[in-house]
């Protein structure tokens, strides 16, 4: 698996792609720093709803994972190099796993760093932050890190599959993120049980319900989020392996 992981990491780490995701990941940090310096303080719920949820979890997290995961197989399909991998005595799940891991490593590192730094910065500028900074910001940052990791893993599983089954994976990913998670889940609460954003927010709240109390009314149960993320990841991993076994490789 190690040679394929190294190959996948090198494929993903193209200069333009890295630049794009680094710029995106820098946005929450830059915005938090800007608001802290210009406006002085902002409320806990403003930071959570606008920076963490609105910008990072609902926007940048799916976009960054989409950029990485859809190209994990998408690029190989497009330039027809996939045959170099599938015509080897390597079981299909051992081809899919390193592709998945590479996207998780690159996307996870960048997004978790962005979330954790933004949270630490935000916590220090939240109104009445003394308690939060001294006692809670570390736990909050940990919760952000774990929740983002779960989000990265789950989105990566879905978008890796999409990149393999469709040449229009990015369109699929955008529809999923902005229509299903952004619009439909706003009107139908039950959709949050089938939403990666819903899982991410629920894990965030479940790990630190005091700091992330403003999310209380719109998150599903913590265990349901953990199980949901695990099931979706497993199902899409399995679907990807199954498709790779059955497909005609160009």
């Amino acid at each position, binding site marked *: 698996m190690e*040679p*394929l992981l190294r*190959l996948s990491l*090198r*494929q993903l780490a193209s200069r333009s792609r890295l630049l794009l995701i680094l710029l995106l990941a820098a946005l929450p940090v830059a915005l938090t720093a800007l608001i802290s310096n210009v406006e002085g303080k902002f409320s806990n719920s403003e930071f959570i709803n606008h920076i963490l949820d609105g910008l990072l979890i609902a926007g940048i997290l799916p976009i960054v994972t989409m950029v990485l995961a859809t190209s994990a197989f998408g690029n190989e399909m497009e*330039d*027809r*190099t996939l*045959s*170099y*991998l*599938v*015509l*080897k*005595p*390597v*079981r*299909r799940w051992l081809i899919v796993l390193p592709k998945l891991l590479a996207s998780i490593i690159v996307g996870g590192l960048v997004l978790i760093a962005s979330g954790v730094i933004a949270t630490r910065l935000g916590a220090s500028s939240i109104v009445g932050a003394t308690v939060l900074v001294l006692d809670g910001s570390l736990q909050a940052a940990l919760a952000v890190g774990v929740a983002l990791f779960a989000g990265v893993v789950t989105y990566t599983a879905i978008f890796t599959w999409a990149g393999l089954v469709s040449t229009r994976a990015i369109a699929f990913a955008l529809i999923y993120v902005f229509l299903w998670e952004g619009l439909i889940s706003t009107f139908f609460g039950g959709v949050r049980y089938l939403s990666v954003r819903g899982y991410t927010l629920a894990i965030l709240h479940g790990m630190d319900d005091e700091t992330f109390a403003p999310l209380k009314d719109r998150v599903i149960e913590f265990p349901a989020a953990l199980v949901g993320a695990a099931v979706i990841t497993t199902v899409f991993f399995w679907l990807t392996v199954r498709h790779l*076994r*059955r497909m*005609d*490789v*160009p």
Partner: protein
Amino acid sequence: MTPAGLDSEITAMEPTIDVRSVSKWFGNVVAVNDVSLQVCPGITGLLGPNGAGKTTLLHMIAGLAKTSDGEVRVLDEPVRDNPKLYRRIGFMSEHESVYGFLSGREFVELSARLYGLTPLSLPVERAIGLVGLTDVQERPLATYSRGMRQRMRLAAALVHDPEVLLLDEPLNGTDPRQRIEFQDLMRRLAGEGRTILISSHILEEVEALAGSILLMVSGKLAASGDFHAIRAKLDERPYKVRIVASDPRSMAAALVRLDAVDSISVDTDGALVVISSNVYALQRSVPRLAQEQHIRLLGMEPLDESLESVFSYLVER
């Protein structure tokens, strides 16, 4: 089918590739239509015009594409969804894309690692040496010429010393010297008992290599067997030759007396269109006739030399 030129002992060998009533369709388009064939050790050419279904058939033999109907077995095992069989098969696709950021050596090493070879250095150096790229092996593949990339891809397909080698248009982009080296290498590998199936749309390319051919036209196996027997059939077929002369009428009158000429017509430009079953005799006779009749011969060109017309002729038979 057994490649020509092999002795009777090899002829008696079990086929290493067994294609049984295989079809492949994409929606309403039939790419391969009920093809059955067997390939034994030696070099076999898979020949056909572009769009004949060669690549689709080769992909099914390699297990890259599933069959819509029928079965493919390689080395007596089903090839599809059987990854461990790839320890014994080498494949080189017609697509020339590579991981441009890898050096040539890294590319071959990647193959070797995925084939599970240990230690790596010996087979990797041997494979790169076989294709003659040792001097440039550390350069990124993105900087290689088309021919060099082809050869490094061949090295990656050979690194695990496969028993069966499937090559799709392997000579694309190579120069004449590289072609000769490639042919020598293939003969050497075949001489060691390997089965080599080479797909090509260039008749002469296959002629130089394969004693035995599989001829595909429009998704069907049009002919198979000894190359020379099939080539003889090609030579018997009537050819159309266009002759431009200063006095077409006198030239036609002289030509009609030749045994080699089946019929003559005049095209819209006033040139003669001659149909001949013995084009070589015609080629020899025309300049002599023109000289005898004091006619200036302005041009002489074959009208249906394309591989497609050759294949069409064979299929019609």
